[in-house]
């Protein structure tokens, strides 16, 4: 949907602020001007009124002598003619009768409104101040004039003491009231002139504002143009394009923004590069990782060029890892990676595929050159690559499987499987050698079989064709069988069930193990929820593959299914083989802790098969150890196995772990295990795997 919102102009907003500010300032100034001018006019005119009144008071005093003095009238006329502000002047007798009135030519003194009331007359007569106007009336009786009234006093020195009065003496003279004088003042010309000037000034200011407005608009537009021009690089940046550069601006503020944007873009570029490197590279060795390699392989497979794929597995790496520890194993991997990279061309793609496995893509090569390269690598590594740890020297060798990418008959996964199979063949042939896939004619059928397995697994996952069987794990002390190990089966023709050892290797090679783990978890928990209705104490032990440690969604899926089927987490025991756990010890530790945090329990399967099994008991927070069946099945006849089992039970008890013995095939074995102190037992003697619980 197109956004039809009309965006406001920044220029308009800035100008609007300026206009509002200017108008406010103008109004305030006009108001102050009005008030000040009015005050000045009123004040000045009031002072002038006092002066006028004083003069008219003197000029008019003879009017009260009872003699007609025409020259006095002329004096009054002449005087008020000098001041157009004086509209008229009227003299009153003591009883308020007008005795003389004179005014401007435009003022009809005969039609003036009523004059002072008797009360006001009395008020004026009682005043002692002589010269100051006593009553000022503004717009009373709708008169346009401001009127002042002043009493006319006549002062005289007292009769007695004529020759000895002192001017400094504050004693008042005799005072007699003669009458009153009214002064009509017309201030309207001032007000009209002021309003006229104000309007003219306002028009001028408006015109100036208009000019300033136009100039300001142009200036602001010009000023923020660099800001507008930033939109283009920002738009490119928003689209993910970091290959942009914002040119500097001559404006300091915008230049700061440009520099900040360039800095941000550089940071984003570096972050993208870092993310890309992290996504495509192995964090330990710095080589390309499996994802990048798979993409590269797909690209190469799509071309018509001839390339080669080498699958390298370090010989005896597990021994180094077990005996010297994982840190030593990691250092060996790093050293091997450097050695391999050093002996390859720049254009060749070297990748750490997983664990101690490396893959190499040799582009535009021939079979002969590739085989020569593989041969040289095997011989030179064995000859020159020495790993030194704790003053011990270890000669490093490798097994290499080689296949040529020169046909469009195979998919990239199939090329990878070819190299993997060739590598396994090289190991099976005694290690420290290479094998070329084309020479493995007898194995053609096996690869096709693997491909068949992968398709069957995918179909089984898609259509839920897998079957779960449950084998009881009996509590030796109570005889109860509340724990069942969940076992995966693939149905085949004739209702036969295929054990996982037949199809899981293919699933691992074709990257299907994660999906298999998810399917088993979901369906096992669903079944557990169903069975818990009849037996709430029941627990399921579910096997996890080595790929579970790389599965970031595993814990989330477990939690979702626990909540979905309302299963207490403590009724779930996850099993992982000791071999897999040791290969991914750090990831295993993390995954086990996360599942325990949910409330689940953990069991270490095939315990004792490794070189340093006891060592891991200290590091892995497991609840159960499941003793490798190879020690159990012949222990009644083999004292060594018996001693091994006994020692494993004792160590487990020491560190607070429960022990489970599998492969219990007869009563003697069971009896012996009881005597050794085993906690749980599992085997055909105690119960075979069945689709239904016993």
């Amino acid at each position, binding site marked *: 949907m197109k956004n039809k919102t009309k965006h406001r102009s920044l220029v308009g907003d800035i100008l609007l602020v300026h206009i509002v500010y200017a108008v406010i300032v103008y109004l305030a100034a006009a108001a102050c001007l009005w008030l000040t001018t009015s005050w000045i006019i009123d004040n000045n005119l009031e002072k002038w009124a006092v002066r006028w009144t004083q003069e008219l008071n*003197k000029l008019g005093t003879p009017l009260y*002598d009872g003699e007609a003095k025409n020259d006095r009238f002329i004096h009054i006329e002449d005087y008020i003619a000098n001041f157009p502000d004086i509209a008229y002047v009227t003299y009153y007798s003591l009883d308020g009768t007008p005795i003389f009135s004179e005014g401007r030519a435009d003022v009809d003194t005969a039609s003036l409104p009523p004059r002072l009331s008797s009360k006001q007359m009395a008020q004026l007569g009682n005043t002692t101040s002589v010269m100051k106007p006593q009553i000022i009336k503004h717009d009373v009786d709708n008169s346009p004039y401001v009127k002042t009234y002043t009493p006319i006093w*006549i002062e005289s*020195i007292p*009769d*007695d003491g004529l*020759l*000895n009065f002192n*001017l400094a003496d504050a004693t008042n003279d005799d005072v007699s009231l003669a009458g009153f004088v009214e002064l009509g003042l017309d201030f309207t010309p001032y007000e009209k002139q002021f309003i006229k000037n104000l309007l003219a000034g306002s028009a001028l200011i408006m015109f100036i504002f208009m000019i300033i407005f136009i100039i300001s608009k142009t200036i602001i537009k010009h000023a923020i143009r660099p800001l507008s021009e930033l939109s283009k690089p920002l738009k490119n940046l928003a689209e993910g394009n970091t290959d942009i550069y914002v040119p500097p601006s001559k404006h300091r503020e915008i230049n700061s923004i440009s520099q900040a944007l360039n800095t941000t873009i550089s940071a984003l570029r570096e972050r993208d590069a870092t993310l890309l490197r992290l996504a495509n590279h192995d964090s330990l060795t710095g080589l390309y990782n499996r994802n990048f390699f798979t993409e590269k392989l797909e690209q190469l497979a799509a071309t018509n060029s001839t390339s080669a794929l080498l699958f390298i597995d370090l010989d005896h790496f597990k021994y180094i890892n077990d005996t010297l520890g994982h840190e030593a194993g990691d250092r060996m991997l790093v050293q091997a990676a450097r050695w391999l990279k050093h002996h390859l061309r720049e254009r060749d793609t070297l990748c750490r595929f997983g664990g101690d496995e490396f893959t190499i893509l040799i582009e535009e090569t021939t079979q002969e050159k590739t085989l020569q390269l593989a041969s040289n690598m095997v011989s030179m590594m064995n000859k020159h690559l020495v790993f030194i740890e704790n003053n011990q020297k270890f000669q490093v060798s490798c097994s290499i499987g080689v296949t040529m990418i020169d046909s469009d008959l195979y998919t990239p996964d199939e090329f990878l499987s070819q190299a993997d199979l060739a590598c396994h063949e090289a190991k099976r042939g005694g290690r420290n050698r290479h094998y070329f896939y084309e020479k493995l004619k007898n194995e053609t059928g096996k690869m096709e079989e693997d491909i068949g397995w992968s398709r069957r697994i995918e179909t089984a996952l898609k259509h839920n064709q897998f079957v779960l069987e449950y084998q009881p794990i009996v509590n030796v002390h109570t005889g109860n069988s509340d724990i069942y190990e969940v076992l995966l089966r693939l149905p085949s023709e004739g209702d036969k069930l295929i054990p996982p050892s037949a199809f899981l290797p293919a699933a691992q090679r074709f990257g299907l193990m994660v999906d298999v783990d998810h399917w088993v978890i979901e369906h096992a928990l669903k079944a557990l929820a169903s069975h818990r209705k009849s037996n709430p104490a029941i627990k399921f032990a579910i096997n996890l593959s080595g790929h579970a440690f790389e599965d970031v969604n595993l814990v989330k899926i477990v939690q979702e299914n626990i909540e979905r089927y309302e299963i207490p987490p403590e009724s779930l025991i996850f099993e992982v083989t000791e071999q897999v756990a040791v290969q991914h010890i750090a990831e295993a530790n993390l995954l086990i802790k996360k599942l325990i945090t949910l409330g689940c329990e953990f069991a270490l399967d095939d315990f004792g098969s490794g070189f340093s099994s006891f060592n891991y008991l200290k590091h892995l927070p497991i609840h159960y150890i499941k003793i490798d069946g190879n020690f159990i099945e012949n222990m009644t006849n083999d004292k060594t196995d018996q001693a091994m089992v006994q020692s494993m039970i004792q160590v487990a008890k020491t560190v607070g772990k429960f022990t489970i013995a599998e492969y219990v095939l007869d009563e003697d074995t069971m009896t012996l295990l009881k005597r050794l102190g085993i906690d749980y037992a599992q085997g055909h003697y105690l119960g075979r795997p069945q689709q239904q619980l016993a």
Partner: protein
Amino acid sequence: MQKYQYNLPASSALCLTVFKALLLFMVITLGGCSMLGKPVEPPAPEVITIKVPPAPVEPAVVEPEPEPVTKPVPLPIPVPEIVIEKPVSLDVAIIISRDIENYHHLSNEIGRLITLKGGTFEPLYLYQQGAAEIIQQIKHEQRQQVVAIGLEAAKAAKMLQQIPVVFCQIYNYQDYNLVTEHLKGVSLIPSVDQQFKAWKEIVPELKQVGVIVGDGKQPIIEQATQSAAAHGIALISRAVKNDKEMWEEFRRLIPQVDGFWLLPDNRILSKRTLRNIVPYSVKHTTPLFTVNGLLLQDGAMISAAQVDSDIAEKVVTRLLATAPDNTIPGADIVPLELAHIIINTHTAKRFNLLIPNDNTEINIERWPSSEDSATLTQ
């Protein structure tokens, strides 16, 4: 400033000489006529004094001053004609209008003179007792004569129908119809002749003097004009109604005159007007001649104050001249013959005037100090 040090034009000098000759002729003629008439009170001695004249002052009627006139009077001053038919015993009630120091001094002086004449007197204070009570008391005590000092006293004494009353210290007596056959007065104005003489002595170039009066004072102005002319002074008079007109007229008059005579007409004077007039005269270098000595401190040039003994003598003389029918003969008002002249040395110095030496015909007191006058007397 050389305002008063200019020479007269030749025509003006000639006119002045002719005028003086005519004036001398008139004086001789009038003097001769007076010698032919009834015995009259000799004119007041021509002693020009500043201080209070030394007591006792001999009663003019009983023992007229035998000393000859030292200088001819330039203008005949009306002198009351008193016919002595029988001795008059003085039993006088002196009514005092207000509690004014000058009134008390004058009362004492009159009383002293009455005592010297063998009479008795009793001062009565109008401001304390009230008019009705005083009238009642005078009638009850059967006082033979009354002296009224001040207007209010005279207005009260007017109620005494048949008792002779002489009033003094009143300027506008005609406004209140105070003069009757039994009620006569003594002038408030010190001797105008002495005043004009002093002005001329101090300001020789004085030619024209302005004066403003209220209603009813035209006779006095006419007499004064004649007296001033004898001293070569032309009196320019104006009449106004009130203090505002006074100030307005004063400003108009000042540019036309060499000096201004400030008569004590209270109807047209107010303190407010005087506070304008006095500095205005100083500002325009026009000497102000006044009868109020206190105005000197505000800038008046010359003051001519009354002499109490002069007044007392005139009052007692009029009392002694009372007729058997208790009427008082003679003019309504008898003039004073003395004047106490004081010059403001500050103002004189400001006007660049030379103060006459002490050995001049007129005794002129200097104010405020003799040191200043010494510097001025060159």
